[in-house]
């Protein structure tokens, strides 16, 4: 038993895809998915995607890194087992800079990568779109716009027709396995 996922429209250039997206959204469609082989600039505005919050995540992680590093160096050197090393202070800022910096970068990097995957809901090995045989070309040279059946304005006949009018090379309805 399978239900309808939506309609797929293939384009062969990024420009046409962007145009189509603009047009479809102008008609009030919201549940759209646009897939491209490389980042297409202008597409996110066309889809009205928000700016990615990754920057803030990285900043927070870096701050944690700095704090952790300084705490580690101060506590181990000056509190837990203070040892006189070359007559130097048990803790001083300058010699602590390198480790602090490195730890900040390390944590920030992890945060960014993990954050990116999380925001993208990856890893997700299964997706209805993968059911479509030709969808594979989206990582090669095809630019795909999918309008989900869940969209209130979706219509099994109208929508494909609309997409064809918008210059899609090919338009298919996509069934989703239950």
């Amino acid at each position: 038993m399978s239900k309808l996922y939506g309609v797929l429209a293939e384009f062969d250039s990024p420009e046409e895809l962007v145009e189509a997206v603009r047009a479809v959204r102008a008609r009030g469609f919201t549940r759209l998915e646009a897939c491209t082989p490389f980042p297409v600039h202008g597409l996110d505005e066309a889809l009205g995607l928000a700016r990615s919050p990754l920057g803030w995540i990285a900043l927070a992680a870096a701050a944690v890194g700095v704090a952790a590093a300084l705490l580690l160096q101060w506590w181990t050197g000056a509190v837990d087992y203070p040892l006189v090393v070359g007559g130097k202070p048990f803790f001083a800022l300058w010699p602590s800079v390198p480790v602090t910096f490195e730890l900040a970068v390390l944590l920030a990097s992890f945060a960014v990568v993990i954050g990116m995957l999380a925001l993208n809901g990856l890893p997700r090995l299964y997706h209805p779109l993968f059911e479509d045989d030709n969808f594979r070309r989206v990582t090669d040279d095809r630019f795909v716009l999918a309008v989900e059946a869940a969209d209130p304005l979706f219509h099994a006949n109208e929508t494909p027709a609309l997409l064809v009018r918008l210059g899609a090379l090919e338009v298919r309805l996509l069934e989703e396995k239950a």
Partner: protein
Amino acid sequence: MADLAIREPFELNAPLIEGRRSYSEITSDVARVVESRPPRFWYIALAVSGALTLVFFAVLTHLVRTGIGIWGNNQPVGWAWDITNFVFWIGIGHAGTLISAILFLFRQRWRTSINRAAEAMTIFAVMCAGIFPLLHTGRPWRAYWLFPVPNQDLVLWQNFRSPLMWDVFAVSTYFTVSLLFWYVGMIPDLATLRDRATTRLRQIVYGVLSLGWRGSARHWNHYEKAYLILAGLSTPLVLSVHSIVSFDFAVSILPGWHATIFPPYFVAGAIFSGFAMVIFLMIIARKVYRLEHLITMTHMDNMCKILLATGTIVGYAYAVEFFTAFFSGNPYERYVFVNRVTGPYAWAVWTMFACNVFAPQLFWFKMFRRNIAVMFAVSIIVNVGMWFERFNIIVTSLHRDFLPSSWGHFTPTIYDVLTFAGSVGLFLTLFLLFLRFLPVIAISEVKGVVPSPGQGKGGH
């Protein structure tokens, strides 16, 4: 088609990708490398480098069982080839991240054809490098004491004033971040390989590795942000790593080591050697896999220019080193530099000058920047020279320091040689495996810099 060419500040009017290539052509050009049976050359190379790798691990086993004494290290030359190799490999490991990160930030689009391979090279070089600081210790089975893990018996911690501790953090951070950067960059291409895969196995492997990437705009949105931030983080990181490596020397009180110009000097040297290695590997890769149209003369030409620039900076650093030594009026400092050019290791210093300062000067001339044979030769010469630079800094400074009574001499043993040769083997082995199984060129990025079939709408 000049009007379609992406105009670069670097190389003024030459298309980055030769001939008009459609997206699918680019895809198959790169994917072909992974999908088709490798050429005979690949098998021969792998056999050789694999053998060297086995030698490497054999020697390291002998080393751990018998002791550092199997090398030529002594008093006063406590560090010799071991740390020379470490700095050498770390240096190599700089071009990758530099190309991916710094050139990315500077919008140097020509990087797209070479950054993937360069990043791979970085990671493998850092792996080779990392082995040395661990195994140059007298008791490697205690090397875990170098990491701040709670120790219930001794309740002792580390000495964070020691540049060696800084190294531990810098190198491990650098390795991890480079790995992440590399992998993140590969996700879309892995998806491409997944989608082109014909066998079930490949489908599953690349499928899992690509984490279910489907190129949705939402993906790209976060992805590009992440990539940008990683580039932003890697840029200071790559500069910090070799600066910190240089602290190993600069922070000591040894004449010939205790120098404030070391950080920039080391970083320049690292980029220098890194690019030399990239050129070396790219020349082989593009030839073997016929990627000349993707890795074009323009790329090679640009890298030669970087080689020329960094090589000249390095030469300048040498000069400054000598100048400061004499200007300082410090007799010990002065002696070290007189000893470098006239002492028992003078031959090594002159080799270094010849290889690092003079050889790259050829690239003032376009004819040489476009001559594969010359590039190939120079890239090798430069790597030899950079190895000697580290050798000179380490050994010639150590072998004659403050008290003439304890001056000594270093002579390598067969094990020193085998250890180094072995590490080269490991490096090449890893790189060959990379060529075989992973997308050697950033497919999606290249597509971003070729003209779109959507005519007239003027790129993106």
